[in-house]
């Protein structure tokens, strides 16, 4: 049994040693090289905004996307990187390898320990990262969310890509231009209970009531469930059921790509118009072969760029996140903070033959 006891002793001492090392609270908190530690700064930061303040150089700005390996966020984070380079800051991108609510928490903790000036994140869950973000705020970081918000009290600014009204206006305008302002149209949506899709479709119906669209008739809304095959079949079904159909709006990237694929291989190519929300990489060939005249999406790169500038403006004291605060975002111009600290990127970008090759996402 002596070997057993010795094993016990070795194990116990090593484990104790490890535990001691772990809890060796060498020093509390983190070292920060700038001294503006306004601990516990809430959403409405103390002090008034000074719109004339210069953007500080050397700001440490970290991007924490929903997950790495996601092309959308790769593009938006690179937009952020461009902005950080312009303001001579330090850019960093970190994130979990899969989009989960809990995995982002440990990254927020890491960033607050590293003494970041700004954390720009897209939340996998509106609540899960709140506690960690509040701790980071207390450690002196400014918090900007983009694309997917947290609860408003957990961040200072939310950079939203576009308003629902903006999407509805843009989609109806595009299809109206393409079909010459009159005729039957249909909508190809995702799932029947998709919150954002349904909100956009309701607003499109309102938009169609305007006098300039009086000759356009929405005949049906079809659902492709954001499934490529189902969307493809639904497009086929629409054209068989409505022989007079002039145009289709598909405000979902999966639906618009599937509809484009069906149309480009059918007799309706170029005759029945298609627009929607899609990515340039998915839609490039259909724009080039004449199936699609124009479609829209916000620019993820501009979204990241704007989020980085919003963070820099916060960290430099130009804005506090209060409604009405104004700041400049480099090449994108001036922005005003709206209600609840929301900043809107603006109307979606329209992609057509003339500009689609400038975009890679």
């Amino acid at each position, binding site marked *: 049994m*002596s*070997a*057993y006891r*010795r*094993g*016990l002793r*070795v*194990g116990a001492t*090593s*484990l104790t*040693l*490890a535990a001691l*090392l*772990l*809890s*060796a*609270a*060498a*020093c*509390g*908190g*983190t070292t920060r090289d700038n001294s503006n530690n306004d601990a516990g700064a809430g959403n409405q930061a103390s002090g008034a905004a000074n719109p004339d303040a210069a953007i500080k150089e050397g700001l440490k700005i970290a991007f924490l996307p929903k997950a*790495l*390996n996601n092309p959308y966020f790769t593009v938006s984070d690179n937009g952020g990187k461009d902005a950080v380079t312009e303001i001579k800051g330090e850019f*960093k991108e*970190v*994130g*979990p*390898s*899969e989009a*989960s*609510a*809990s995995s982002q*928490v*440990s*990254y927020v*903790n*890491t960033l607050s*320990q*590293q003494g970041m000036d700004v954390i720009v994140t897209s939340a996998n*869950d*509106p*609540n*899960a990262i*709140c*506690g960690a973000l509040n701790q980071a705020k207390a450690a002196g970081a400014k918090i900007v969310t983009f694309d997917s918000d947290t609860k408003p009290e957990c961040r200072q600014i939310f950079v939203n890509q576009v308003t629902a009204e903006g999407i509805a206006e843009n989609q109806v305008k595009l299809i109206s231009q393409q079909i010459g302002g009159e005729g039957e149209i249909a909508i190809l949506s995702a799932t029947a209970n998709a919150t954002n899709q349904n909100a956009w479709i309701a607003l499109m119906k309102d938009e169609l009531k305007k006098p300039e669209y009086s000759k356009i008739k929405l005949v049906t809304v079809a659902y492709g469930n954001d499934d490529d095959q189902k969307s493809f079949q639904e497009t086929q079904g629409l054209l068989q059921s409505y022989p007079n159909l002039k145009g289709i709006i598909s405000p979902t990237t999966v639906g618009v790509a599937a509809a484009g694929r069906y149309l480009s291989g059918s007799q309706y190519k170029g005759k029945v118009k298609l627009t929607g929300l899609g990515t340039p990489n998915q839609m490039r060939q259909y724009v080039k072969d004449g199936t699609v005249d124009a479609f829209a999406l916000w620019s993820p790169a501009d979204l990241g760029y704007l989020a980085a500038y919003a963070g820099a403006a916060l960290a430099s004291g130009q804005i506090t996140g209060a409604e009405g605060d104004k700041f400049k975002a480099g090449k994108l111009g001036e922005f005003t903070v709206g209600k609840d600290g929301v900043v809107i990127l603006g109307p979606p970008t329209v992609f057509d033959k003339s500009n689609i090759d400038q975009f890679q996402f």
Partner: protein
Amino acid sequence: MAHDSLYAAPPTAEAEPGAGRLASLRGLLGSWDAVIVAALVVAVLVASLTVENFATGRNAQFLLLDLMPLALIALPMTLIVITGEIDLSVASMVGLCSTLMGQLWLSSGLSLELICVLVVLLGAVLGAVNGLFVTGFGLPSLAVTIGTLALYRGLSFVVLGDQAVADFPADWTAAVVRNIPGTSIPVVVVPLLVLAVIFGVVLHATAAGRALYAMGNNDQAATFTGVSVARTKFWLFVVSGAVCGLVGILWTLRYASARGDNATGLELTVVTAVLLGGVSIFGGRGALLGVLAGVLLLGVLRNALQLADVDANALTIVTGSLLIASVVLPNAVADIRARLHRRRQRHPVAS
């Protein structure tokens, strides 16, 4: 708890009585959990010296909080794997218990204390279903729990859909991340330690524990010793479910969010930690101390690499490599020592 006789190493692992330094070194090599503990100490030392912000109280708190679910689930998993079975539905049970807790809080009007008790019981029921299929119908646990992995995850999305329940009382959500007063050690470490001691004592100091090893080595032989193999395994799955219920509660409160996708993928990390801790996937071999060291080692590596700004994809690669090494190395060491032993027998040295 490095009980040498539990290891399938050649008998030379038994050092002679009153052995010198060389023999104790040999004894060390013979027990994988001691190797893992040493690796943990080295990892902590290296990280403390090279990674900024690693050796701070705040980081210790974050590290231990992040490890809590993994460590808790690894306890029953260790016992299950030692008996030669496996439970791959653990993460899905955590997710389902989390959504059930959210749904009960949302619509039942019961007190949160009562809901927590119910959720642990529900976890036990989920575990009982696993146990019933494995022992009642004599099905392989690998197949059964892969099935319930999908089934329970699917059910957790039925319970809440893509919604999340988040309005838990603030004093509850704050309580699970609080530290023991005056230290930087989270209070949730206390229940972990209590459970670890219970599991450790059962496994290493009782007849029931020895029976678990016997089962892992040979079911039939275990039956002859008068142990009910089926009943024991059934209850192990029940305990696994109950612990997952507890983890579901802690997870939900820590992240203030009951969601269907909570803890997705955690089962593989648990299995990694258990194997890394020296438990044989074929059963019959392993110790709880090694598993706890394995859990800590995974956590320290992940935390330190993250602080050092190592890409998340690299973390996955490191975890995979560690697992392969933990399976290959003990066998290689045993092999080398067996060869040395044979050589010594051919050329005996007068001591």
